[in-house]
């Protein structure tokens, strides 16, 4: 199944992902939506290789601009700037990048092991996941809006409610009645979340950048190849420690629907800060551990997100939402029966993730210098190109021109939200998870027959009970450790 062609596609995916991921403003989500639209004509296996590679490369690319420009290339690299940029100012940019690449590779490989072990276990359990389980799993994801809203909780809630509202447009999942369509054909199919994503992340960025006067200030640093290579010195030894907790934390956060590398890296950073009493330097002033921890955590989240996506068919985060859509498009059916009917693709994906992670490391070592040159591409080349990719991506999704209009509408909305300092990620979370919450709740209600027996079933179904306990636990956890991270920002 693994042929030379597939590995080549994987490599090209890594390189393109790395380039796009490192461009400020081109988030991994955005990168993936554009990449997926490139694969419409591919065969399934080559498309898988390409998409999986681009995902791995995209997250790593984000760290490059986080360290070199202090602009996180992706939301998942936000925490990397906390210590990565101070390191750069001390003249240790190359070491910081070397550590980041090394840590992310270790984190990535850990998460693949996690996926390989946990995936089949959850796959076996997946058939016992009924409506109640889906309901609480997705509610759990929604509850993490608090985190995505980055401090301003009210604005986060408002964004999320907007997303939930948009998610109700279209056909009622239970009765088939049309809701909020105003008789328009355009709204009958509902709002496809990928369209909203392309608008809110891609088109918005174009508009925001047009509005901005200054070009990106590109650092004139040169990364010596020898300095990027890992060495068996104290720096690398000290950075290995956080893997003990960052790996599991990242993977578990990745498992929760709707959350991924962005939250994983912040939690990983916060946790490391609490736990490590003697870092190489104080956190925030250039601690190597402060670069390694978020990188490990956000790559570990990848495995968790893949697990949820493949075994339950729920997107683990906004990026896997795009990937999930592309899998359906190419004829793969992630979901509870995936491990039964398409197990060989499960292992293919694991293999591709492994190869892609190694490629990412190599591309990062060899290509970081060249990437810094790419970052100096003037905006008048970059922005029209992104805008056109947004149009193609949204049209190609279902060959529907209405999606292009919607995408532009979401772009304008995203721009206004950006001006008003409202977060846009909760909108996406609402659009993706809202319909699953609604459908699962109503299915559960029909299934149990009455409200009282529905409430009873929350306690009597073991998996539901476990998830409820986890939700309560995560709230308690958030209030102490998460709080300290937010104060930092």
């Amino acid at each position, binding site marked *: 199944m693994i042929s030379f062609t597939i590995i080549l596609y994987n490599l090209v995916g890594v390189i393109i992902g790395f380039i796009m991921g490192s461009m400020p403003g081109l988030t991994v989500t955005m990168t993936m939506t554009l990449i997926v639209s490139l694969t419409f004509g591919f065969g399934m296996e080559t498309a898988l290789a390409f998409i999986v590679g681009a995902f791995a490369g995209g997250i790593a690319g984000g760290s490059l601009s986080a360290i070199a420009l202090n602009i996180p290339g992706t939301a998942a690299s936000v925490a990397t700037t906390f210590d990565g940029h101070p390191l750069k100012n001390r003249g240790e940019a190359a070491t910081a990048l070397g550590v980041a690449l090394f840590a992310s590779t270790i984190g990535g490989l850990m998460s693949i092991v996690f996926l390989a072990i946990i995936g089949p276990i959850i796959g076996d359990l997946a058939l016992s996941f009924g409506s109640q389980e889906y309901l609480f799993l997705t509610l759990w994801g929604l509850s993490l809006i608090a985190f995505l809203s980055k401090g301003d909780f009210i604005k986060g809630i408002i964004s999320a409610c907007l997303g939930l509202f948009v998610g109700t447009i279209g056909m009622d999942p239970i009765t088939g009645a049309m809701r909020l369509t105003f008789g328009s054909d355009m709204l009958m199919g509902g709002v496809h979340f990928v369209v909203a994503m392309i608008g809110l992340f891609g088109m918005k960025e174009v508009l925001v950048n047009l509005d901005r006067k200054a070009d990106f200030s590109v650092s004139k640093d040169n990364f010596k190849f020898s300095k990027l290579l890992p060495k068996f010195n104290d720096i690398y030894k000290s950075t290995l420690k956080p893997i003990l907790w960052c790996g599991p934390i990242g993977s578990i956060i990745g498992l929760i629907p709707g959350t991924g590398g962005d939250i994983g890296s912040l939690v990983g950073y916060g946790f490391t800060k609490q736990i490590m009493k003697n870092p190489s330097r104080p956190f925030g002033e250039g601690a190597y551990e402060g670069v390694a921890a978020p990188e490990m955590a956000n790559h570990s989240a990848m495995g968790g997100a893949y697990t949820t996506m493949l075994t339950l068919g729920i997107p683990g985060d906004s990026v896997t939402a795009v990937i999930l859509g592309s899998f359906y498009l190419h*004829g793969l059916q992630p979901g509870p029966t995936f491990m039964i009917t398409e197990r060989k693709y499960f292992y293919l994906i694991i293999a591709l993730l492994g190869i892609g992670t190694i490629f990412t490391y190599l591309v990062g070592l060899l290509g970081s210098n060249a990437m810094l040159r790419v970052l100096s591409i003037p905006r008048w080349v970059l922005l029209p190109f992104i805008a056109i990719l947004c149009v193609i991506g949204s049209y190609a999704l279902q060959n529907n021109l209405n999606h292009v209009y919607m995408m532009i509408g979401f772009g304008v909305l995203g721009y206004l939200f950006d001006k008003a300092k409202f977060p846009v990620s909760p909108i996406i979370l609402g659009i993706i998870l809202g319909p699953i919450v609604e459908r699962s709740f109503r*299915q559960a209600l029909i299934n149990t027959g009455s409200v009282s027996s529905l409430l009873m079933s929350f306690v009597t179904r073991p998996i539901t009970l476990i998830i409820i306990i986890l939700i309560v636990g995560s709230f308690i956890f958030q209030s102490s450790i998460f709080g300290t991270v937010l104060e930092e920002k």
Partner: protein
Amino acid sequence: MSYIIKFKRYLISTILVISLLLVAFTPGTVNAEYPERSINVFIGFSAGGPTDVIGRGVVPLLEEELDVGMGITNMPGAASATAGRHVLNQKADGYSLFFGSEAMSVWQTMGINEELNPYEDFYPVKLVAEATPVLAVPPNSEFDSAEEFVDYAIENPGELRIGTAGPGTVPHVSGLILEKQLGAEFTFVPYQGGAPAVTAVMGSQVDATIEMVQSMVEAHKANKLKILATFTNEPLKGLESIPTFGDQFPELQSYLPYGPYFGLFASKDLPQDVKDKLESAMNKVIATQRWDEYCEKFYLTQIDYSGEEAVDYLRGWTSRAAWVLYDTGAAKNSPAEFNIPKP
């Protein structure tokens, strides 16, 4: 001043990229006898669904007969009405075709698209196949036959939950037929398409699921669910051991076999010579051995209707589905509004 220069740069770069893409993707067009250039077939559901799978079986065979390139475009939305509408909006020259299925028959009654009727607005080039829904229960279910299942539902109205692919779909209507004709009462749990409904029955989340036989048969053979009966009068080829509803309940026979149809449609304004050309090519397609094998693989019943015959078939199918939906209160509109006769 520098702003104007910058704006110009943006503009020039935009125009360059767009024109490059246009050059890359514009096909050459020549006027001559049909078919001269490639034909696009639109499918109103996502890749991997039953309509898509069957369409992708037919189109390559038709491509060989017509000897031009044929592309398949999935344009999901509004139970395939989006794609149907799109094809009707194109020039009626036979270069945009629609591979449709039974969802067309409930567009009007379910209020999905009140203006489009499968036999009045489309020209059915050829109806090629029917699929068969079956009733299946979890592997550990107490029910071993459709009779036991139905009897229990008559004695305990509303207690048995049946998973379906969604409101107004064939599995839903099939269940409604059981209610209407046998006096049973079920609770229907709509899932987002057929696959989750099958998963639900395998995991005992519901008491039974009605879905197409081809998506259940592998699980049946692996003992992950039990198929109790098919919605036919005659046993299915290759699955003779599975009883039929028609056999067990004679009062259902007039409604059976009940299952979705699949076929190639075009705009009704198509020129006669194009209609003839397409129909004769489709005649050859369904006579091929490869089509036979394809149908056998997916447990499809072959049908062969075109022209007036196809219109009669569609009219009958539409009226049965529409009135069952209406009589059981599941429909949004009365079929009478659209001059759909009672069966």
